[in-house]
């Protein structure tokens, strides 16, 4: 029992030693600290079992995941906060300098960042349209049809494809203004000189459409699962009462689907806020930043200018905004749903 505790202490000591080692013992990297952390984590779990017996065994179920998450999220976040207030360009030799609130001031004056944030609002609003389409498709899939399995697999496929491949397949080749098949189709329909990424509005719409293409199946499947959970009797009852299909949808199906819908939309918003891959690969933010999402903007800040300090601050501000927005949304959804139960 005490042996395990001693082991724990020993490993902790080792870790502390390692931290000091960076100055005097000349390790090339911090990797020993990582190993020490892993050993320490294992020691902690082991110690819990021995010290607390049954209770400890229960604790060990959650502990590994918790330790892992703390190491991978909380630590980098704190570290990121310290970077956010420094002037640090990886390309320059001078290294890291603390510069207080300069980054904040720069952000305040950066029109591209605000533009990217505004774009995110547009992208997020597009979810409502996606939701309507997904709901429609789910209703169709839930009705009496043949070859249901075929349609389900076909509808699911876009979700499985990697956004990078999608951005090439659709963004670069099918939308190619000279010989892409969609450009051809557009010309057939009377658009003389189709250019899908020339004007800001159309470019933004195309990005939305591509993102919708990949993620509509996701919402569709969640809604479909919800639809299948509704007992058949309800619809029969509505029919007996003489409700038209239209009315029975709005009075029975839709209200029952509300919780599922809200979950689906919330998750979709979370995914949408991470939108970047397609933008980076198709337009890289252009024309004139019209399609930039926050993520792709910061990505270029790192990649092209290796402006670490400023980029991190932008990301941190984004995180704060997201957390605030999501909290408000969740609270609102909660309040809106409660009276109906």
């Amino acid at each position: 029992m005490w042996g395990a505790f001693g082991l724990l202490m020993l490993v902790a000591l080792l870790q502390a030693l390692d931290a000091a080692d960076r100055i005097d013992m000349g390790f090339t990297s911090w990797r020993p600290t990582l190993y020490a952390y892993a050993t320490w984590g294992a020691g902690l779990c082991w110690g819990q079992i021995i010290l607390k017996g049954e209770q400890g065994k229960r604790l060990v179920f959650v502990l590994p995941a918790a330790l892992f998450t703390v190491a991978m999220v909380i630590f980098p976040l704190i570290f990121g906060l310290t970077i956010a207030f420094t002037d640090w360009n990886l390309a320059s030799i001078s290294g890291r300098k603390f510069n207080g609130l300069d980054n904040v001031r720069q952000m305040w004056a950066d029109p591209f960042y605000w533009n990217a944030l505004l774009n995110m609002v547009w992208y997020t609003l597009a979810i409502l349209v996606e939701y309507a389409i997904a709901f429609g498709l789910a209703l169709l899939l839930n009705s009496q049809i043949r070859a249901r399995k075929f349609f389900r697999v076909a509808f699911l496929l876009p979700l499985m494809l990697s956004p990078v491949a999608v951005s090439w397949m659709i963004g670069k080749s099918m939308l190619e203004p000279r010989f892409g098949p969609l450009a051809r189709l557009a010309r057939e329909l009377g658009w003389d000189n189709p250019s899908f990424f020339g004007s800001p509005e159309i470019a933004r719409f195309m990005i939305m459409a591509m993102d919708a293409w990949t993620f509509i199946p996701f919402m569709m499947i969640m809604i479909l699962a919800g639809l299948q959970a509704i007992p058949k009797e309800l619809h029969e009852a509505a029919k007996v009462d003489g409700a038209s299909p239209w009315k029975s949808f709005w009075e029975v199906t839709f209200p029952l689907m509300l919780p599922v819908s809200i979950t689906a939309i919330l998750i979709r918003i979370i995914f949408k806020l991470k939108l970047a891959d397609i933008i980076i690969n198709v337009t890289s933010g252009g024309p004139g930043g019209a399609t930039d999402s926050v993520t792709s903007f910061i990505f270029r800040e790192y990649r092209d200018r290796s402006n670490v300090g400023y980029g991190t601050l932008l990301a941190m501000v984004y995180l704060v905004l997201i957390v605030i927005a999501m909290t408000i949304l969740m609270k609102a959804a909660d309040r809106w749903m409660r009276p109906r139960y």
Partner: protein
Amino acid sequence: MTQIFHDSEADRSFRAKWWLGRGATYGVLILWALICLFPIYWTITTSFKMAPDVMRGNMVPWVDYTPKWLGWRSLGLSPDTIGAESTVRAEFLKRFLNSTIVALSASTLAVVLGSLAAYGLSRFSYRFGPMRNNDISFFFLSQLILPPVVLALPFLVLYKELALLDTRIGLILLYTLTVLPIVIWIMRDQFASIPTELEEAALVDGLGIWGAFLTIILPIALPGMVAAFILSLVLTWNEYFFAALLTSTNAVTLPVMVASQTGSQGINWWAMAALSFAAILPLIVIAIALERYIIKGMAAGAVK
């Protein structure tokens, strides 16, 4: 022969309406299926085209144009080059291997850690300081909200210090983190649907908590685990953002390779099409073979 029962006027209009509804339903379904499948079809066919075929916009193989192995030859994967040495193929296979290793091990790790945590959270009550079960679950799930950009940069610097930059292990750890909340979410649902009496019976029979978990509960929860595993596999296979930032030569994954080729081979369509198709092929196969599990996994959160 006289007909005894005649359709009345009302019936007939109803029948017409019904057919109309059917037609519209299938019309929409087929239209959407086309929207979903056409880009994939286009990619496959383009990989067998030659330059003039692309310019002319030929669509149907053997009718509009004769398929050529051009695109696949540039990857070193066509029948006549498959035996010969090919640097492109070597690189492609290396990237493919990277992607496979990273995706498989990250998903495995996430499913193991996530299932344990989910089981614990669904069965026992914990207290870490002020945090109760619900808070702990929320702590795990809230990782979903965290946008990758926020972590990207600290990790870039941290990995540099840890000498993990451009290694597979670094990517695996990070990917595990990104899919862990999803796994926990699915598995918590899965475990909650298993009655506690099963474990109680096992405990009475003299098994420990871990024994009961491993021998009784895990086999029952296996479908859920498969669903979670496949979902994480898809997500990690497709991940681009972190891979683009954190790898440069050794650990580059397929999406990064595809993305880096878009610039350099702008108009070399057949090669790009072949590469893209090779990158998405495993997922298409998974989607068709294991569609049931994927849908189950995604539906887990929707219906409580």
